[in-house]
């Protein structure tokens, strides 16, 4: 993908990409620019999403949340960023200096490396690797090493506990995550991210989520393990405040601390867009086939890119909102419960889904009557879940509102996006 852009730029300057001797310079420049674009994207995603999360959290806890910097507090993340820039970069006297200083970059680097294969739109992807999905699972290993490094080099027992917990958690939850994503690979017949998206369609009944009941379950095992791999509540034991103060980054301050937070909130996008790619049909638009988009040129081409990006970002953002809501709804698990959830429930369930998908792929003819029946069943299950979750959420809001009215004699801010 990047090679095409580099070739296009060379042709723009009247050079022939096949014979141009310094092609590698153009390639390197394009790679640098794309890396910068990914970095800027994640910066303007991860920043505001911290504000968004804090506001949702506040609303769910019946308090106000950050509302001082800018209208409704939307600029809170900028204030936080500037504050962290200005803080002193502390290194504890007993810490292992070089490792302590290097660890945040390892975590952030491992996180940024996922953007090599994450698609944003029909052609908006840095490199559509043939082993894309596997690469994404593999590169998170850097994050684990970084967390262990941070935990150990801080020379603080809480940090070490946090680091070890997070490593144990990430290594364990990689297994159900990989199994459920392999079910998707089986259904798509490829590990390339764009290939997986193209194997689905734009309509919900063409998504892998509703392809058959096994993939429907695999979506939830995959999302649960992704949340666990992202160290988010209910799986945030590595930084459980009540037990470990802050876990592996307890000794960090200033910008180095910010790198950890950056990776943590940016990871929300990674896990949501991974689920969007694998289960929710990615960037596909109804009535437009990927071939049409590939065939378009000029302004129409960029129009499609923008439109597919909008579709993709909408799906991913809805998932982000869902994951945030889960975080502030569920209490934290205990260490043994965490491991039991993984090894006794998620791993067998994901394996079962993998075998189920295999059997169905072998036994059920695609687009046959049985196939449609399976899709119908999955969609019905999805509908029931969605309605039940909506009704429960609404009932909680209403109960909250009535309580508030009785106590204060005032109206609670409702709907929830109308904030005080």
């Amino acid at each position, binding site marked *: 993908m990047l090679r095409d852009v580099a070739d296009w730029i060379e042709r723009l300057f009247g050079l022939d990409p096949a014979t141009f001797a310094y092609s590698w310079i153009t390639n390197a420049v394009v790679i640098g620019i794309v890396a910068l674009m990914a970095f800027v994207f994640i910066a303007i995603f991860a920043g505001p999403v911290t504000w968004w999360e804090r506001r949702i959290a506040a609303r769910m806890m019946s308090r106000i949340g950050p509302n001082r910097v800018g209208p409704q507090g939307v600029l809170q993340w900028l204030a936080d960023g500037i504050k962290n820039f200005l803080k002193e970069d502390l290194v504890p006297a007993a810490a292992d200096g070089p490792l302590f200083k290097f660890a945040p970059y390892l975590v952030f680097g491992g996180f940024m490396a996922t953007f090599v294969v994450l698609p944003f739109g029909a052609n908006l992807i840095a490199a559509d690797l*043939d082993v894309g999905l596997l690469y994404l699972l593999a590169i*998170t290993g850097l994050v684990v090493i970084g967390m262990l490094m941070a935990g150990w080099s801080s020379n603080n027992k809480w940090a070490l506990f946090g680091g*070890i917990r997070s490593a144990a958690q990430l290594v364990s939850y990689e297994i159900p995550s990989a199994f459920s994503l392999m079910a998707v690979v089986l259904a798509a017949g490829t590990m390339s991210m764009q290939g997986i998206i193209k194997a689905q369609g734009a309509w919900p009944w063409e998504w892998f989520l509703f392809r058959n009941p096994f993939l429907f379950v695999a979506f939830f095992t995959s999302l649960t393990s992704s949340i666990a791999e992202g160290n988010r509540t209910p799986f945030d034991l590595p930084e459980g405040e009540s037990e470990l103060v802050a876990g592996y980054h307890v000794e960090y301050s200033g910008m180095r601390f910010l790198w950890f937070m950056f990776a943590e909130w940016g990871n929300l996008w990674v896990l949501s867009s991974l689920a969007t790619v694998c289960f929710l049909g990615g960037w596909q638009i109804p009535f437009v086939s990927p071939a049409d988009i590939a065939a378009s040129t000029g302004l129409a081409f960029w129009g499609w890119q923008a439109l597919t990006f909008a579709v993709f970002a909408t799906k991913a953002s809805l998932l982000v909102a869902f994951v945030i809501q889960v975080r502030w709804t569920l209490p934290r698990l205990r260490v043994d419960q965490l491991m039991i959830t993984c090894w006794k429930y998620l791993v067998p369930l994901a394996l079962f889904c993998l075998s189920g998908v295999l059997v169905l792929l072998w036994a059920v003819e695609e687009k046959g009557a049985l196939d449609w029946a399976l899709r119908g069943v999955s969609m019905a299950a999805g509908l029931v879940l969605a309605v039940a979750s909506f009704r429960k959420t609404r009932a909680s809001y209403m109960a909250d509102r009535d309580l508030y009215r009785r106590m204060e004699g005032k109206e609670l801010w409702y709907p929830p996006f109308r904030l005080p």
Partner: protein
Amino acid sequence: MSDPVVSAIVFYALAAFTLIGAGVVALSGNIVHSAFALFAALFGMAGLYAFLSADLLAVVQMLVYVGGISVLVLFAVMLTSGLDDSRTSNSTTRLVGGIAVMLAVAAAAFVAASAIPSGVESAVAPTTAPIGDLLLGRFVLPFEVVSVVLLAALLGAVTLARGVKGGDR
């Protein structure tokens, strides 16, 4: 990457990264530093695989060695009690024997490598499908035997770690 000079630079950078990592593993007096350097060496190997356009191998190297083995090594090192008191076995004074072994291995590797025809340019192509075909077709028996060996190792590790009956747990 068709430029031979750039290719050479990339190759030597990756090789240097790997070798420095391996050197720190062998020579560092701090065993945790050794463990982290092992991770760097294995990561450099993944880079070399990627450089040789063995895409699946590079990713599997990352998945198994970087994400799995080195985390386990770090875990074992960090959870070992009395780490600071223990003497590391790779005392830096025993360089002579080490260098002798290294030279012997390098000579063997050189002999082995000269048997492989070099300079064969092959097109960059995805390797996943052919490897899958071979593993589940021609080499299905070795593949299954390896999995049985791994299962045996797994059971053996559990049995060893479990300790004597009636102990804690």
